[in-house]
């Protein structure tokens, strides 16, 4: 009896753990594809304000929003646990962005504290 049940039990436990560990990954993939990671920017008081609106249903632990330029400058903002509906904001003085032609915006963190993940947007050809 135990011999017949052993493979079913181990598979069932494995499947349950996989479902539990796979859910944050699934939620992150689905929500981020449906606009859950919304990056916006505005210019206020001679500052470039970059806002990450986090709309994914699982938290992003150790979240870091970072902007680097081709001139070697870097700005970052972090949150130990970015929850759904929260925002991460970066404020960069426009004077610091003179002569910049290319910027890289990266978002890094750990999905539900399980999977380390990163997203990087490179934008070139910036003028003025």
């Amino acid at each position, binding site marked *: 009896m135990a011999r017949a049940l052993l493979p079913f039990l181990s598979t069932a436990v*494995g499947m349950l753990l996989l479902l539990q*560990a*796979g859910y944050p990954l699934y939620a992150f993939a689905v929500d981020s594809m449906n606009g859950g990671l919304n990056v916006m920017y505005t210019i206020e008081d001679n500052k470039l304000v970059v806002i990450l609106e986090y709309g994914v249903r699982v938290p992003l632990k150790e979240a870091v929003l970072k902007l680097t330029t081709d001139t070697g400058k870097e700005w970052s903002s972090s949150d130990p646990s970015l929850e759904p509906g929260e925002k991460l904001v970066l404020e960069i003085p426009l004077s610091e962005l003179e002569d910049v032609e290319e910027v890289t915006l990266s978002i890094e963190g750990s*999905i539900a504290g399980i999977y380390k993940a990163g997203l990087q947007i490179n934008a070139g050809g910036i003028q003025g």
Partner: protein
Amino acid sequence: MKPEKEVAEWLKRFASAAILGAIEFAIFIVLFYWLLPYVIQQLVPGYEPVARQGYPVIVVSMLLLSITARALRGTILNPIFRSAMILLGLILSVSIVGIGELKVEGIDAGGGATLNFYIDLTPLYEIIFLFMILPTIAFIFINYFLGEAEKS
């Protein structure tokens, strides 16, 4: 049993195992070289399936282990070869998806911007290895030794 008869018996076992192995191999090719890359490509735009580049050494080794294990059913070599085949299967899956990290690079985000992302899948591999692969290997050996105990 006469030696000639024993040799003929083993040849018959290996021949039938080879036929079943060829069928398994055909299913494997359809699943991993065609169906799985197609599904991943539909789910993750820009993902270049590495499965089609092929892992001939691992795939042929798995096929040979499967045939040998089936032909040697009832001997201690059967669970050893089956376990080795399962471990090679895990190595193949990890090789196809990527070691640790799933990376997608160079997606056109519009306006001249490109997008790259990565996800570290190590926790998933750990669960699959600890709670699915290892118990399966343990079960193969337990089953074999219990079968031997029942015989004697």
